[in-house]
């Protein structure tokens, strides 16, 4: 055996355990799921080929899907800018020599690591309209028309957004802190010598040099927000009505409550399409504002 063939053989031996698993649970699953999306199958009777019907139904006829799509979109628009903006502000403060910064960073980051289920359980209690902490606080500061958070379709999605911002703002904060700390101090010293004030330094130096991090934080937040499920499952069960039903929740219900496997697979592919387009658009427009050295 030649040396090259020996190395190839060795490489494949290293790859084998992972490759077998990937072929079954990832590559195979992707192929199977795309085939499945052209079928109707309840896992009991034989699957029937329906062509593009799952997709046409999804786009043209299924009012519930249109609603869950809108809900998910509102969720993304509500959480992503808030998380990014607050994360940036917290990071800007915490990279300074503020007393107790290690403690503050831990406090902001702590919710990130706990299970969303547990977080949603407490917030369900905090949002309780009659005995909840939040309405009590609002009452104390003089709000007379107290929202019935989780049973009012107008407020339920807002409640989920609040919980999600609280839960994951620490992720953006930590990312921004790392980004800020990687900006060389010499750049700031040069700006100071040129007589730039704090605001000018922030706009013309910090923001451009931070933009790769900002870009990344936004992309990751958008991708994960489109996949929102846990919060809605525990906090509202998708209700009231379908007011907080989301795309992933709808996939879950179709596949595992109603056993419409083909239809659920079709929705999953549409979700992939939505995420792909959202990410693609961001990559396309990054040239306009992201600054790479």
């Amino acid at each position, binding site marked *: 055996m030649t040396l090259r063939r020996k190395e190839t053989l060795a490489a494949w031996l290293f790859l084998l355990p992972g490759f077998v698993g990937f072929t079954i649970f990832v590559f195979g699953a992707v192929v199977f799921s795309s085939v499945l999306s052209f079928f109707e199958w309840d896992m009991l009777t034989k699957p029937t080929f329906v062509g593009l019907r799952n997709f046409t139904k999804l786009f043209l006829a299924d009012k519930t899907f249109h609603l869950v799509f809108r809900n998910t979109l509102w969720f993304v628009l509500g959480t992503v800018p808030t998380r990014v903006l607050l994360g940036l502000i917290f990071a800007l403060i915490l990279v300074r*020599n503020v007393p107790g910064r290690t403690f503050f960073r831990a406090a902001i980051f702590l919710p990130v690591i706990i299970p969303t289920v547990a977080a949603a359980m407490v917030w369900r209690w905090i949002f309780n309209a009659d005995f909840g902490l939040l309405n009590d606080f609002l009452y104390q500061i003089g709000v007379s028309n107290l929202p019935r958070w989780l049973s009012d379709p107008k407020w339920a999605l807002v409640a989920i957004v609040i919980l999600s911002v609280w839960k994951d703002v620490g992720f953006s904060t930590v990312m921004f802190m790392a980004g800020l700390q990687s900006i060389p101090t010499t750049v700031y010293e040069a700006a100071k010598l040129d007589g730039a004030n704090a605001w000018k330094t922030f706009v013309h130096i910090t923001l451009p040099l931070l933009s790769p991090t900002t870009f990344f934080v936004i992309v990751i937040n958008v991708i994960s927000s489109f996949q929102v499920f846990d919060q809605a499952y525990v906090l509202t069960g998708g209700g009231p009505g379908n007011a907080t039903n989301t795309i992933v929740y709808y996939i879950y219900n179709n596949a595992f409550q109603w056993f419409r496997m083909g239809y659920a697979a079709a929705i999953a592919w549409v979700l992939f399409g939505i995420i792909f387009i959202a990410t693609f658009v961001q990559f396309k427009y990054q040239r306009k504002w992201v600054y790479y050295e």
Partner: protein
Amino acid sequence: MRIKEKVLNWSLFCLMVIVAFIMLVPFFWMFSTSLKSLGEVFEYPPKWIPSQPRWENYARVWSVVPFGRYLLNSVIVSGSITLLHLLVASLSAFAFARLNFPGRDKLFLLYLATLMVPGQVTMIPNFILIKLLRLTDTYTGLILPNVFTAFGVFLLRQFFMTIPKDYEDAARIDGASRFYIYSRIILPLSVPALSTLAVFTFVFQWNNLLWPLVVVSKDSMKTITIGLASFQGMYGTTWNLLMAAAVMGILPSIVAFLIGQRFLIKGITLTGLKA
């Protein structure tokens, strides 16, 4: 100038105190409610500190649901996924980073491309497979489909690439095998990356709700996340017991956080490599 900066820092400090208060109040409220009697829970105005802590709420949760079992299941499932993922990912990453073979870069790109596919796409076929193999309600069914993600392969490959070739050249001249180089040279030098990946994977799997929800129906196989969710389904507004359960559900995460904070934060920052 120095004074101005000090004033600024202290006013930012005051702002952060408010922020930290908002971030921590749910934790405090969870704990405080968990120690109240049901009468006290619905008292107005809300009491911050229960008049008499009722630790028996915790005992009641343990007696009505197999909470210890849920925790044990979560430890077994998240622990196994973490170990297997580390093993499989490091072997693959070694091949991608340190060996030459035809089609290497194309295959790696294929692995990378799977990072874009949301888990919901593969979840349905994987459920069907697990069901056909009669592996629902088993540890294998909970563990196996979660072992294979490209994330760890990518992270470790990037790290392995930074280790200078000289280290292994010396060993190779001495006639060391590739597996020896992998296990005795590359892995020991990669402890920071491996521990970051381990903490990251463990926490992520510990918090996983959707997959256990899909493959588990037996109470004895429930993990902590679906255990909590079903407990909430049974005790909808018995807030003191719900909060006691939630406290127990987050306690392991908080302990892990205090121990592994450094790795976790580094791990989250390391995902920045993906950009």
